[in-house]
């Protein structure tokens, strides 16, 4: 369970950047993170309190809550390399873990 990646994606309704971010995140997770991501999409128009708690300003915002340390990435996640680097995950280790399994 240590390898479980918990990601929260904050979006605003069905705007273009938000839709793009959803699609980009899904693709990224499958292609680069081995599919072992727990993703929750939060619409700030419906849950502004949650955005308040996490002090989200921009949308889309991707929060990595686990593994620690938490990270915050804004934008539609179209720059995959930047997202991967930004998440600060040790991809090699991740892949090694998966191979072990």
């Amino acid at each position: 369970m240590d390898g479980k990646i918990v990601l929260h994606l904050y979006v605003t309704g069905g705007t273009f950047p938000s839709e793009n971010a959803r699609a980009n995140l899904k693709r990224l997770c499958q292609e680069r993170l081995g599919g072992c991501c727990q993703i929750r999409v939060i619409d700030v128009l419906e849950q502004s309190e949650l955005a308040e708690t996490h002090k989200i300003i921009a949308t889309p915002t991707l929060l990595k809550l686990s593994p620690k340390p938490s990270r915050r990435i804004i934008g539609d996640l179209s720059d995959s390399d930047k997202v991967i680097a930004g998440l600060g995950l040790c991809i090699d280790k991740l892949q090694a873990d998966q191979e072990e399994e």
Partner: protein
Amino acid sequence: MNAIIEKLPTGIPGFDSVAQNGLPKGRTTLVAGSAGSGKTVFAAQFLSEGILKYDEPGVFVTFEESPDDICRNIVSLGWDVPQWQREGKWVFVDASPQTEQETIVAGAYDLGALLARIEGAIRRIGAKRVAMDSLGAIFSRFDDQSGIRSELFRIAATLRGIKVTAVMTAERTEEHGDITRYGVEEFVADNVIILRNALDAEKRRRTLEILKFRGTNHHKGEFPFTIIPGEGIVVIPLSSLELKQKSSDIRITSGNTVLDEMCGGGFFRDSIILVSGATGTGKTLISTEFISGAVKQGERCLLFAFEESREQLFRNAIGWGRDFKRMENEGYLKVICVYPEVAGLEDHFIKMKTEIEAFKPHRVAIDSLSALERVSTAKGFREFIIALTSFIKHEEITGLFTSTAPTLLGGATITETHISTITDSIILLRYLEMNSEMRRGLTVLKMRGSMHDKSIRQFTIDNTGMHVGEPFHNISGILAGRPVHVETVEDFCKLGRLLKGTE
């Protein structure tokens, strides 16, 4: 589009008068100012006064300081924000930088979440007011500045749609130049207020200027303001006060019968009298007589003394046969001694105004007004005098101000040049050197709306007060400080008779 724009009274003391009833309702106003100009206080006070005076809840969006820091800073101004938060009258939207996390940008974004949070907060407490402080911080955090500008515009438009009146603050890099560093005004602001904290002749002077209110009126120019613990910003409206003055034809005594006669029957009630003269000519005496004259008639007096201590003043009064202590004990007199340097002129004004409002005197004496010149610039002093006289007249109080001339003989004071057009009466006191002796002279230089004695009278001072005597004869140049004996026709005849040996 031509609909009349309503105003929302802010409740900030003095501001609504300058803004002619408040901020444009349902609009966003940009409050721009350099560091330390009072932007955050203005923003916080806009919400606080709304809660205190109009029961209108408010949302505070902070881009720079954390809510805790803001609370700490403004509790000292007398606003119990934590309590209001518990009561659901004040809500923070915390958009301040989260230090523990750096933000990585990967693609296009907007400020949709911020807008949703602001809207959510407004909905939760039914807010009527929103304050956003300060925009510079958000520009420095995101690279896409034109994108941020258009997002702020979107926020302002949304607030307008839900009929919320908002204040946004922004930094200025210099006191006179571009309105804001990031050019926000072009996008968000139909309404712009500028706060200044300018250094002029080694003195700080805070002013507020309404640069524009689109489609509605406001007073123009800079208005001084001060920030007082327990009250916050207090704007001193100058021109907006002046026009309401009434004028009375009721006469009141100066406290001296001869002086009353010289003035054509006494001073007018709700008039301003300036007493000018060198040190020791008897200005404090005239204000003492002015006070005791009022107290004898059962009127209440307030004396602001900026030159002498209580003990000195009371001793002087005793020396002239007047008992200030008894007058105070009986509630007819209140003496307030303040050293001019303890506060700025704006603070003095507010304090004096508060004292006058509390004591409700019939008469106010200030001894001396010129002592206050020391703590201000010339411009600030002029504004102070205008504000003070307007206020005193508005309250239908008689005001007697003294002004110390810098030279012993003759000379005008700076106070005089600033105040002479505002005062209704001017009394000049002068030393005269005559036959190797110093004498004192007094004249009524101006008595608005009345005939008055134009002679220059001698006067003496003893332990019962002031005694105005006969006019000086055959002397000219007294006011200029160079008295010269003038030969009259009578003198020539006398000389002729002497020469003929008939006398």
